[in-house]
């Protein structure tokens, strides 16, 4: 799993003018693309060579097949599915297939859906499906051609199984190792013939398991935190107590007197202490005395921000300069409709920290204009771009060795590369190519922002004579995640409305007026596993539940009727599957109450039926029946793992998760104040995968399991208590 040693690019180092760099940076915005693609520009200076089997497949002299994986492994296990796609088309011996992270190179390894090398949006399998099928099939064709030439038999009569190439009629066979030298000389076919998906023997079976379980069960996996190197320095940074504050002055005398502390530097984000060990760095950092310039700091409390969002949605606060409502679904004539008011309800969602198990960290070494980074890079292209600006080099020349991450949930991919840039700033001060490991403590990590934004929704629905929505008025107020993005921009921030926009419930409603407002706040925000769906799924599903109850209808039957109106076949199928497996319609086990919810995100549709009861004044979730339509299921085992994990992540947020600010200071510091779901609170998730026609394109799995559990539990509690829950988290500390 160690990344390959790539030769340092020839153009790295001298000779790169400031002007080239600016052109490159501009091109990312799509402004300058004369004769070359943005990925060409982003990859400028990169090592471009690949082996005979292309960028994704490497075959060793012993015939072992390695997937060069352009997606980072941070727990989602997508390497298993990705390697299986290659192995399936190549007919490789699955037990000997390995994988490793690709180097940073936007030209070779851009995410098809995102235009940059970046793992996100649950796209790993989805965007690699065609690409890796072709890579596997092309390599297979090269072995077949090599064997056909060697044996002088027609290629069409050759078969391949478990890395062995055979010709039945002549009784000849040879394994990949024996044919490798010849196969490597065959020109790869431009349009390799893909397998008929009905003939798949590996994809979709329980044999497709992740490859890293042993290393992760023996402490052998090398995370960024574990990087050790000759001369390594460890850095910790004193950050300002409020977002937007800066260093005014500092006294490093006591810090420098700490044993093991090597140097103290002021950097743009605070004051950095570098030391010979982690503990020395922490002791030194804690001994710093820093005065902060808070003139531009965000000093509001989160309660003030939430109140303003509420007032804006209710129309009782004035818009400020630059604030403007943007419609995201409009049809019919809401205002012209009479009819009784069925429901008007407003929902509040707090800021959420990702709280990955491994706090943010990075290892960087800088020598003049060159930089080498060793860390869990989720968006190598973004990271290269941001680092290039600091060391004045081409993005492609910034070398990154990607390590597995101790979780990300979105945190490690951001437009500012915050912790990466911080590490490079320190490594640049240290210089001399000396490796510097930036370590954030849990407290640093929790207070650093890039939270799931605080969100407010206000929904007003009137119903027709049968109790189905006739008008749907929807207001969402939240900070924009995409503001400041180097790509996209302008228009509605889709990440704020996805899941409300496109909802089958809105499709089934004749009159819709749905609008978004994105005021600024000084708190950095970011995508957080399942992004917009973290709140839109809750609002849509809990609102529908309240409407079903008002209409006196069974929640499953009510949803079915709306899905039929909206022709939402996939929603209908997973709802039926979950309801059937959960025994919906039969009494729940003694003491438990069931709740249902359905949501589509990242191309997949998930339905859950959760069994809930109150225990010691808190909701307790037991059995959770999950049905998913994710297109072709490549690794059923890992799909189940993602449903289990995603459900825990979503439940943790719904029950306990919140970051609050008091006068601009983050109140939560660690797991004692930022409560997360624990072992004894975890549900038992059963996963049922809705069968799809062979060859159906696979869709997302890492995120779609997260947003459904919150509303499923709220809907159970509504059934139990008769009360809607209009704010997360459910459990107040």
């Amino acid at each position, binding site marked *: 799993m160690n990344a390959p040693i790539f030769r340092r690019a020839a153009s790295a180092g001298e000779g790169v003018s400031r002007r080239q760099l600016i052109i490159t940076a501009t091109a990312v915005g799509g402004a300058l693309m004369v004769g070359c693609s943005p990925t060409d520009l982003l990859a400028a200076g990169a090592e471009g060579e690949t082996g005979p089997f292309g960028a994704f497949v490497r075959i060793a002299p012993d015939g072992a097949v390695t997937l060069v994986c352009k997606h980072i492994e941070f*727990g989602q296990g997508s390497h298993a599915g990705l390697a299986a796609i290659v192995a399936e088309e190549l007919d490789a011996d699955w037990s000997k297939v390995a994988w490793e992270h690709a180097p940073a190179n936007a030209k070779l390894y851009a995410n098809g859906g995102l235009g940059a090398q970046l793992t996100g949006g649950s796209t790993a399998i989805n965007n690699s499906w065609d690409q890796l099928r072709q890579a596997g099939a092309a390599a297979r064709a090269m072995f077949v051609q090599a064997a056909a030439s060697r044996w002088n038999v027609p290629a069409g009569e050759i078969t391949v199984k478990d890395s062995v190439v055979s010709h039945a009629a002549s009784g000849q066979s040879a394994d990949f190792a024996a044919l490798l030298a010849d196969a490597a000389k065959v020109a790869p076919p431009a349009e390799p013939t893909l397998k008929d998906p009905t003939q798949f023997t590996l994809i979709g079976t329980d044999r497709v398991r992740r490859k890293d379980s042993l290393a992760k069960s*023996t402490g052998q996996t090398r995370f960024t935190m574990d990087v050790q190197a000759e001369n390594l320095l460890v850095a910790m940074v004193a950050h300002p107590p409020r977002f937007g504050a800066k260093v005014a002055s500092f006294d490093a005398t006591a810090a420098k007197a700490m044993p093991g502390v090597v140097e103290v530097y002021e950097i743009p984000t605070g004051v950095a202490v570098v030391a010979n060990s982690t503990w020395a760095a922490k002791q030194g950092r804690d001994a710093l005395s820093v005065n902060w310039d808070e003139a531009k700091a965000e000093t509001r409390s989160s309660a003030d921000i939430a109140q303003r969002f509420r007032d804006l949605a209710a129309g009782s606060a004035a818009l400020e300069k630059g604030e403007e409502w943007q419609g995201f679904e409009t049809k019919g004539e809401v205002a012209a409709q009479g009819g009784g008011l069925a429901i008007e309800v407003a929902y509040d969602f707090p800021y959420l920290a990702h709280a990955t198990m491994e*706090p943010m960290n990075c290892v960087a070494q800088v020598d003049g204009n060159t930089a080498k980074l060793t860390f869990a890079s989720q968006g190598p292209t973004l990271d290269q771009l941001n680092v290039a600006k600091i060391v004045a080099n081409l993005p492609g020349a910034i070398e990154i060795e990607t390590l597995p991450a101790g979780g990300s949930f979105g945190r490690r991919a951001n437009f500012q590369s915050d912790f990466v840039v911080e590490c490079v700033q320190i490594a640049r001060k240290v210089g001399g190519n000396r490796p510097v490991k930036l370590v954030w403590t*849990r407290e640093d990590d929790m207070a650093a922002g890039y939270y799931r934004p605080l969100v407010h929704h206000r929904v007003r629905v009137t119903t027709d004579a049968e109790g189905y929505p006739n008008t749907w008025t929807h207001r969402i107020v939240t900070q924009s995640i995409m503001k400041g993005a180097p790509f996209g921009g302008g228009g509605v921030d889709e990440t704020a409305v996805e899941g409300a926009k496109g909802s089958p419930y809105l499709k089934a409603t004749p009159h819709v007026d749905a609008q978004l407002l994105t005021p600024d706040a000084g708190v950095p925000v970011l995508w957080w596993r399942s992004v917009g769906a973290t709140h839109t799924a809750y609002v849509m599903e809990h609102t529908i539940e309240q409407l079903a109850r008002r209409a006196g209808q069974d929640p499953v039957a009510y949803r079915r009727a709306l899905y039929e109106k909206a022709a939402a076949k996939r929603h209908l199928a997973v709802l039926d599957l979950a309801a059937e497996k959960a025994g919906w319609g039969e009494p729940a086990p003694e003491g438990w109450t069931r709740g249902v919810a359905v949501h589509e995100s990242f191309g997949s549709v998930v339905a859950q039926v959760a069994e809930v009861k109150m225990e010691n004044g808190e909701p307790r979730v037991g059995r959770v029946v999950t049905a998913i339509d994710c297109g072709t299921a490549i690794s059923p085992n890992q799909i189940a793992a993602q449903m289990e994990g995603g459900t*825990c992540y979503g439940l943790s947020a719904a029950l306990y998760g919140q970051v609050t600010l008091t006068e601009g200071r983050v109140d939560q510091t660690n797991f004692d104040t930022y409560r997360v779901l624990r*072992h*004894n609170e975890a549900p038992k998730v*059963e996963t*049922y*995968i809705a069968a799809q026609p062979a060859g159906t394109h696979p869709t997302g799995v890492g995120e779609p399991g997260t947003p459904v559990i919150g509303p499923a539990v709220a809907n159970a509690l509504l059934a139990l208590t008769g009360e809607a829950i209009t704010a997360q988290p459910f459990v107040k500390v």
Partner: protein
Amino acid sequence: MAITLDVNGKPLTVEAAEDTPLLWVLRDELGLTGTKYGCGIAQCGACTVLADGAPIRACLTPVSALGSAKITTIEGLGGDHPLQQAWVALDVPQCGYCQSGQIMSAAALLEQSPKPTDEEIDGAMAGNICRCGAYQRIHAAIKVASGQAPATASPQTDA
């Protein structure tokens, strides 16, 4: 000061200030990076190791407090401990960062209670956070390792 520790059956001498937490001595001085940092305040369990068979949080245990206690880290479990076998059979780890601590807590539990009940497992494992939410498989793997469930049990079901 020079401190001698018994780690995974070997006497090891390190130079460290006496208030240095065991965690950083293991990781930075002895290169035993299997033991993880997650919170530093005994809230997450990522740093769990055994001291004479009992689970301790290395992040809050000063090296000077260990005396002659025999320390076992994930590296000392051997790689084919029944828990590790069960962890692999069930593909428990996701990101894997919490898993050393999970396994060490589970190892201490099995020492105490070779066939733990669900409640005992809940109690013993509540101090180990897994942000990936692998709890269900952790629970199942402890059942497998303690001979209370077959290792073949695959946690997912197809429609």
